[in-house]
């Protein structure tokens, strides 16, 4: 009998295949269709903006870990890449480069690393970066380049308002929704992404493909996207039924702005969303309600980012809603 040294450790002795890395790279793969559409419509500038955002996020995370926190850099886990991509997805493709770098610093430095890095941040880092930019540089953040197929120019693109902004301005000036819709791209064009907006949010179909991938890979569950989008449809549907001249129909709300990007990629961020099915549904409903409230009655034409960040703040409270325990109700 040979004497071999045996490992002794408590059970279980086998582990699942999933890892933080596999989840993060899964999300990155799911973003590829939307990224491809943004390249198609916004050209090289979309590529440039995304690259800058990703590289600055990785660099800031590495620098902060190396020189301030002095811990083992964890950039290889892929989460900084996601933050960078999502930040880029949430800005116009013609945003000045230095602004993207500043946005990345806020996202990684303020929203993520100051709370202790991956897993500890209460707010979605990319959205914190985006909202910081929106409030600080409102003009640059809301002059949207018009999509033009395979645009190779980095500058001198035409800019215009997003469909949501057109409706908001128009209704405020007393125009009817139906007249305004006639001036906008058709719903089909919105569906494929031929509209103005942030570079990753325009194409509904590309985002849905990414969402299906995430569902199949079990990286997200249906609870948050379905409850959020469902609430948006019901709330905006009620308003539409009350007065279709004043309020635009639910489909418009779904296809424009950051509704799908938010529902599929931002609200479902594991770190900043609740952990039980019931609290996830309440979380999604809250985002849906706040989004429509801001879009219809608020000062900004778009409210998904604010809605998600506000609901992020409720997550610790929502996590107090306990799942039903086995053997709980029939206590004798």
């Amino acid at each position: 009998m040979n004497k071999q040294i045996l490992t002794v450790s408590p059970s279980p002795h086998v582990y699942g295949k999933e890892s933080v890395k596999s989840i993060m790279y899964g999300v990155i793969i799911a973003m590829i269709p939307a990224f491809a559409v943004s390249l198609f419509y916004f050209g090289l500038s979309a590529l440039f903006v995304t690259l800058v955002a990703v590289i600055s996020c990785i660099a800031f995370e590495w620098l902060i870990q190396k020189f301030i926190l002095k811990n083992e850099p964890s950039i290889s886990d892929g989460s900084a890449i996601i933050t960078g991509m999502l930040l880029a997805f949430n800005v116009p493709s013609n945003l000045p480069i230095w602004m993207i770098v500043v946005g990345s610093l806020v996202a990684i430095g303020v929203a993520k690393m100051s709370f202790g890095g991956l897993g500890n941040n209460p707010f979605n880092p990319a959205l914190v970066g985006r909202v910081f930019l929106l409030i600080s540089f409102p003009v640059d953040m809301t002059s949207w380049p018009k999509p033009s197929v395979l645009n190779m120019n980095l500058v001198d693109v035409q800019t215009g308002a997003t469909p949501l902004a057109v409706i908001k301005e128009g209704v405020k000036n007393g125009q009817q929704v139906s007249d305004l819709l006639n001036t906008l791209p058709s719903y089909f064009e919105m569906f494929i992404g031929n509209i103005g907006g942030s570079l990753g949010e325009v194409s509904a179909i590309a985002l849905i493909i990414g969402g299906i991938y995430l569902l199949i890979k079990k990286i997200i569950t249906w609870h948050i996207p379905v409850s959020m989008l469902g609430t948006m449809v019901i709330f905006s549907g009620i308003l539409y039924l009350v007065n279709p001249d004043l309020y635009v129909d639910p489909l418009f709300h779904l296809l424009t702005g950051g509704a799908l990007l938010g529902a599929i990629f931002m609200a479902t961020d594991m770190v900043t969303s609740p952990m039980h099915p019931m609290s996830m549904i309440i979380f999604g409903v809250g985002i849906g309600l706040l989004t429509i409230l801001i879009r219809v009655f608020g000062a900004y034409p778009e409210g998904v980012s604010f809605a998600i960040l506000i609901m992020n703040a409720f997550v610790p409270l929502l996590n107090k809603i306990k799942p039903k325990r086995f053997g709980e109700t029939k206590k004798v």
Partner: protein
Amino acid sequence: MLKTFPKGGVHPPENKISKERKIEELQLPKTVTIPISQHIGAPSTPIVNKGDKVKVGQLIAKSSGFVSTNIHSSVSGVVNKLEEMLDSSGYKRLSIVIDVEGDEWLDTIDRSKNIKKEVTASQEEIINKILDSGIVGLGGATFPSHVKLSIPKGKTAEYLIINGVECEPYLTSDHRLMLEKADEMLVGIEILMKAINVNKAFIGIENNKPDAIAHLIEKAKSYKGIEVHALKVQYPQGGEKQLIKALINREVPSGGLPVDVGAVVHNVGTAFAVYEAVQKNKPLFERVVSVTGKNLNQTANYLVRIGTSVNELIEAVGGLPLDTGKVVNGGPMMGKAIGSTDVPVTKGTSGILLFSEKESKRKDVYNCIRCGKCVSVCPMGLEPFLLMTLSEKAIWDRVESEKAMDCIECGSCSYTCPSSRPLLDFIRLGKSSVLKIIRTRQK
């Protein structure tokens, strides 16, 4: 739709490598080391001394309380010593070491091969026989079986549930037993039904054993009140509470016992042992053990005398492979890693599982990314991430109020965690601390 428990669970790769290997009798060892504590409850009291001659099946240690049981010699020979010996827990425990001489069985044991179907023993006789024969839960929990069969006053059993799930990956001892000893097992089930006075028994088998399901359905036709149910392959389907929920849709209350919902659960191996004890007068001194692992050239299901060294089992399949990094007593999800292979097989040893060095390593631990997967896989509806944090911070009152004591230690949380966090390790720490507090409070 296959029956299953409603919430949580995981589906690890099944790896039932040894499922085609017929049960073989392992060659008699030269010595056996029989610990006096192989079951849950009080250790038995030895009644033999050094130098005594014993026969196979002879009582060598007596039950020392209600939750305790008898232990019998598994071999014939001479008691060499009573000494503290290393067992699979990693601790040294008092054991009876017997040097084997021949293979002389007690005359009272019926060694004939014929199946004795007619059950003549009365309810009381059955329960006494089970206690006398030292039968404990052979699924691995080793809870003395007579205790489960003694229904407390004021409660009634309605169903006997027989656990043939074998949801642990790798293990195949129950699977083989169901295929090879179906009639004996079914008679054993009839005996158990009589013991608790029920007329309905359900056998639950995971759907990855279609041959065993078909075989038992066919065999069960000639027995009254025994139904076979195929269950979804979902770990921990064989957890007692999960199995009850799956089969009769009742939830054992938190802190309660199966009998609170009218169920008594026994393992298929236990049913077989009950048959042998009651019909053949044979005490529990041998059991089926799977010897398996991906790094083995040959796997096996051995009928092993209790007290045989694990070394002998491994030698019988060709010796410990050089790349072995871990040896587990039991299955990969709930089994215990043993530090030395020179420990005896006991009543609870359902398998000896070998892992290569590469498979033995745990993965690096990362931050919790709050994915909630541990919550979604917990079959008890607990929040493993929270229990771990509370245990780390030693907030024991919260550990208790968050129901750590409901945890069945199935390991689904640790299995599934993408950050490889040692969730169950910390929950165990929390449970043992809470248990101490509860005991102090009761004093």
